[in-house]
């Protein structure tokens, strides 16, 4: 379970999140909002990438400020641009890189890598240079490299933004089938439909919190209602 207690975050003088109180225990939580609304900062707080200026964030009781390493073991993070996440030259090596510090034998490491490659349809690309994959395959690799460590929560910050419709649908269906708790930040409003809970972030505050249909309606009203002619 993720708990945010009176969280405020500032970049310099600029307040990007203000007084956020949340308990996230649903399996599928989506976050929507305009660019600059604070939703990516909210996502980064969950994995300890960003520490709150005020308040605290707890993941299964671990404070992101005091116990960042434990939090990162629990919470995997997938970014928008898969090119920035791929560290190793080839596909299988990038997945194996995630397990380097897991204290596994080489056989066990290879077994886990092979299993995750198979699961994500990347087995045929195992020894290919990662930079030669398509955009969708790169995002699958980024997901695989995170999920091979078996985190209990997966936070995805706009993972489909750079993908075409087919790859966005593929990533979305993979996320839907995961046993982990998933927190998805997205601009693709149709992706949030199967989610249990959707947060609408605007101006650094959670301005709506509810089921998808209501939340998307509230978001549309917020954005289109405030549009100047």
């Amino acid at each position, binding site marked *: 379970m993720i708990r945010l207690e009176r969280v405020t975050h500032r970049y310099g003088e600029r307040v990007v999140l203000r007084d956020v109180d949340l308990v996230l225990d649903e399996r599928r939580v989506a976050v929507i909002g305009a660019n600059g609304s604070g939703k990516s900062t909210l996502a980064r707080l969950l994995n300890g990438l960003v520490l709150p200026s005020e308040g605290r964030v707890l993941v299964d009781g671990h404070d992101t400020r005091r116990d960042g390493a434990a939090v990162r073991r629990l919470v995997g993070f997938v970014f928008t641009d898969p090119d*920035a996440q791929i560290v190793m030259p080839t596909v299988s090596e990038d997945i194996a890189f995630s397990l380097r510090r897991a204290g596994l034998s080489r056989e066990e490491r290879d077994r886990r890598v092979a299993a995750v490659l198979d699961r994500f349809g990347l087995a045929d690309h*195992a020894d290919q240079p990662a930079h030669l994959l398509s955009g969708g395959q790169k995002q699958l690799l980024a997901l695989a*490299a995170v999920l091979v460590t078996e985190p209990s929560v997966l936070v995805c910050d706009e993972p489909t933004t750079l993908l075409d419709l087919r790859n966005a649908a593929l990533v979305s269906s993979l996320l839907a089938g995961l046993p982990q708790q998933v927190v998805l930040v997205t601009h693709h409003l149709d992706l949030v439909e199967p989610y249990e809970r959707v947060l609408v972030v605007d101006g650094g505050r959670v301005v709506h919190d509810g089921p998808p249909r209501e939340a998307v309606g509230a978001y549309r009203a917020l954005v289109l209602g405030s549009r100047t002619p």
Partner: protein
Amino acid sequence: MTGLYFPGTSALHRAPAGVKLVLLAVATTALVVLRDPWAVAVGAVIVWAGYGLARLPASVLLAQLRPLRWFVLALVPLQWWQGGLRVVAVVVGTLVVTVAGAALVTLTTRVLDLLDVVERVVSPLRHVGVRPDRVALLLALTLRAVPVLAATLDDVRDARRARGLERSPRALLVPLVVRTLRHADRLGEALVARGVDD
């Protein structure tokens, strides 16, 4: 050593990464110290045999050597002028054989195995504040940076052409540096998210 792993099951593929790196270091040192065309010829035969043993096609060997072509073309007349054919054979031969040998090591060794060796070699420096895992990570990121920078350069060149600024060095350098720094920022964030810093 920019060659990527070429999967296989040969004896060279199965040989420990540390052994291959030591042999490469010994052979390279011997060629540089001996400065003998016969030694270069023996080295070339051994490297050639290594490619055969690892069942690597000739096209793979040529791809490793292709980046050297302009350098070699510039080097040959210069060395000829300075010392004649023997010097050309020694200097150019040593360069080509050692690059082909280094590529043979990377083509038959997974980068993770190389990183493990680097970490072990550097680990005594832990006592003077060097973090072996960081040195190994630096090596991995350097290998990864080559295709990323090449792709960025292509994008920036296209953008420059689209704006009709083909001759402007500023239109190439400024976006290239900005995008590279931005990539480095995002990569750093991704590494932290993957627990590399923990």
